């Protein structure tokens, strides 16, 4: 079972809510710029698929799923 956080790269507006509320500190500031000029976060290891990042994202840019 693998936990996946998928970020819609061009939908993100870099508010940082997901980074702030991730209980495991999986997300961190990104370095690649998207179409609108924002820097979407990058996903690291250790995700427990709680879905908090997706629930706080104002732009519904995050999808969380578990994959077999």
């Amino acid at each position, binding site marked *: 079972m693998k936990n996946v956080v998928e970020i819609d790269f061009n939908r993100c*507006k870099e508010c940082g*809510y997901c980074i*702030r509320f991730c209980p495991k500190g999986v997300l961190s500031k990104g370095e690649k710029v998207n179409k609108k000029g924002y820097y979407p976060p990058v996903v690291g290891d250790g995700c427990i698929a*709680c879905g*908090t990042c997706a*629930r706080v994202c*104002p732009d519904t840019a995050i999808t969380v799923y*578990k994959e*077999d």
Partner: protein
Amino acid sequence: MRKYVYKRPEVFTDAITTYCGGCGHGIVNKLMAELIDEMGLQENGILVWPIGCSCLSDRYYDMDAYMALHGRAPAAATGIKRADPSKCVIVYQGDGDLVSEGMAEIMHAGIRGEKFTVIFINNAIYGMTGAQMAPTTLLGQTATTAPAPLGRIVDNSGYPVKMAEILAELPGVIYSERVTVNSPQRIIACKKALKKAIQLQLDGKGMSFVEVLSPCPTGWKMAPTKALDWIDDEMTKVYPLGVIKDASKEAE
């Protein structure tokens, strides 16, 4: 096989919102979309949008919507709901729209006890027009029309308006609650309040009103995560959270 923990609500179109990064409108729009999916309102619901940052929101939802003029959303919703009471009518308004431009409309809709749901986004500022002072701006808060160092002062512009308390006084309003969206727990609580408000409408009991304290990082000139703290530090002191009125049991 994929097991989704969180997936974009199906009622949403592919449009990217015009909100700024970290805007509370986006969170509340998303909660509404989740509830529309869960409660099966896509066919049976009509959304009434206001003037303000959320005036382009009809394009985010694949369902019926009406865009009312400045502050007139409750008046338009009255017509829609009376013409077809079987529809679930959800009115969405910001603070400039509901409190300042449309004070008369919301008050009289409450006085008449119209049976729809009003979602009121209170971010204590006029967001779209460029951070001018709204009737809900806190005392001492700076805005482009209430500049530093004084900010809003009583002698010039009076006191912040507490809509959830004012509407709770009206017999026609059966449910009034104030929530916020500045943490994951409170987002869940906000969704619960919205669900209850919509359910009361479906049960045909009277007007239900939910005020959401919402961050406006651009208008407040703060980083988005700092705006979340500002709601805790300043806004909730003036606008206390909680259920202000729940007459749904007596209305039976």
